[in-house]
C-alpha cells in the first residue's frame, strides 16, 4: 500500500527479544549478520533499543516472568511495528511444552505477523521468512 511500506521494506531495524529460549535460535539469528548470509544487504540491522526498531524478533517460550516485559516492550515500540516469532518455542513450546512456567504461545500475548518454525530454523529459512514478510507488506 503505497510508498510508506516501500520505504519501510527496505530498512527494517530489528530488536531481538529472548523470552526464555534455549539460546540456539539466538545463535542462528546472529548467523544472519555474518559474511555468509549478511542481511545488511537488505538494509536490515540489529539495534540496541526497542525505540529504534521496526521489527520485534521474539525467540523462546514466553515464560511467566517474561509476560509483563514482552507486553511492555511491545508497547514501547513506535508505530509501524512487526513481530516475528522465530523457532518452534514461541509457537507451541517445542521441547518445553507443558512446562510449569510456560505462559502460552506468543500470539496469545501480542499479535504476531510472521512465524518461522524450526528448532532452530536455518538462517536460510529465516531469510526466506523475512522475504515472505516483505511480500506481505506490499
Amino acid at each position: 500500500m503505497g510508498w510508506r511500506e516501500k520505504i519501510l521494506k527496505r530498512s527494517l531495524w530489528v530488536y531481538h527479544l529472548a523470552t526464555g529460549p534455549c539460546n540456539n535460535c539466538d545463535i542462528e539469528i546472529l548467523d544472519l549478520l555474518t559474511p555468509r548470509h549478511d542481511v545488511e544487504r537488505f538494509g536490515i540491522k540489529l539495534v540496541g533499543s526497542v525505540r529504534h526498531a521496526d521489527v520485534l524478533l521474539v525467540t523462546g517460550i514466553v515464560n511467566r516472568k517474561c509476560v509483563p516485559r514482552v507486553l511492555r516492550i511491545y508497547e514501547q515500540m513506535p508505530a509501524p511495528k512487526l513481530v516475528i516469532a522465530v523457532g518452534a518455542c514461541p509457537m507451541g513450546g517445542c521441547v518445553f511444552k507443558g512446562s510449569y512456567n510456560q505462559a502460552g504461545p506468543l500470539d496469545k500475548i501480542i499479535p504476531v505477523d510472521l512465524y518461522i518454525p524450526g528448532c532452530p530454523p536455518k538462517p536460510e529459512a529465516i531469510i526466506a521468512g523475512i522475504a515472505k514478510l516483505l511480500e506481505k507488506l506490499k
Partner: protein
Amino acid sequence: MGNLGFNLLIFPGFLFVATLGFLWMGIERKLTARFQWRMGPPLWQPYIDFLKLMIKETLIPANAQRFMFITPPLLAFAGVLISSLILFRTSLFPKTSFLGDVVVFLYFLLFPSLALILGGSASGNPLAAMGVSREIKLMLSYELPLILAVFVPVWKTGSVKFAQIMSMQLQKGAFALHYPSCFIAFIVALLSIQAKLAFPPYDIPEGETEIMGGPLIEYSGSLLGMFYLTRGILHFLLPSFLVFLFWGGFPFNRWQWILSFLKALVVFLIMVVIKNINPRIRIDQAVRFFWSRVFVLGIIAMGLAIAGW
C-alpha cells in the same frame, strides 16, 4: 552574493550537505561491510533509513522532560546547518567570510554533542545518563586538541578568517604539505574529529552493545531522524573542514572544486580505515590518550608553528 534563503535551504546549505553527507555515510557502511568480507547495504541505504525514521511514530517517554527532550535534535541540526553554511558560503563567495568565522564555526560544531548531552539527560533513562557522562568526558578530551590544531593554520595565516586561510593556501600551496607543524596539526585534528563523529575506537558514548545507543536510547521516529541527519551531515562536514584548513580549501573553480571533494573523501577514507582496524576503547583510556598523547602533539605543532616551521 546569492540569496541567503536559497543558500540556506538548497545550495551550500541543507539539501547539498544532506545529500553528500548521506552519500558519505553510505560509502562508510559499504566499506565497513567490505572490510568484514560482507556485501553490505546499497549506497543509498542512509537516505532510505532517514525517510523511514521520518515516517515512524515519535514517542515521548512518560518520565522525560518534554521540552528538553524535543528541542535538542532540532538544536543539533541547526548547529550543523549553520556551520556548513559558514564553511561552504566562504568557498563560493569568499567575501562573505567575516572576522572570527573559524571560532564561530567551532562553536556551532559543539551543538551536536551538547544536544546529545541535553537530550540524553532529559530522557530520564539511566543508560542514557551513562552515555551522557561518557559524552561529556569525551568532549572534554577532544575539544582542546582540536582547538590547538586549528590554531596552527590560523597562526600561519595571521587571521581567523576562512577566506584568508584559503587564499593563503592558494598562493603558497596546501599547509599540510609544506609545513611540518601543519602536518602534525592535521593528524591531531583528524584524531579529534574521529572522536567527534563517535567513530570507533571512540564510539564510547553510543556503545551499542553495552548501553544500547547511549543518549539516543529513548529517541524514536522523527526526533531520532533529526539526529541521524545531523550525523550524516557531520560525516561530510568534518572532513571538508580539515581540507579547508590544511589541504588547500575549497576554491570555487571547476576542477579544483571537484578535486577538493575528492580530498575530503580521502580524509574520510582514512577515518574509515582507522574505524575498522580498532576496537572500542574504554572512556578512561580515551581521556588518557587525548590528554597525554594528542594534546602533547598539539602543543608540539603549536610550538613549531610559532617557531616558524
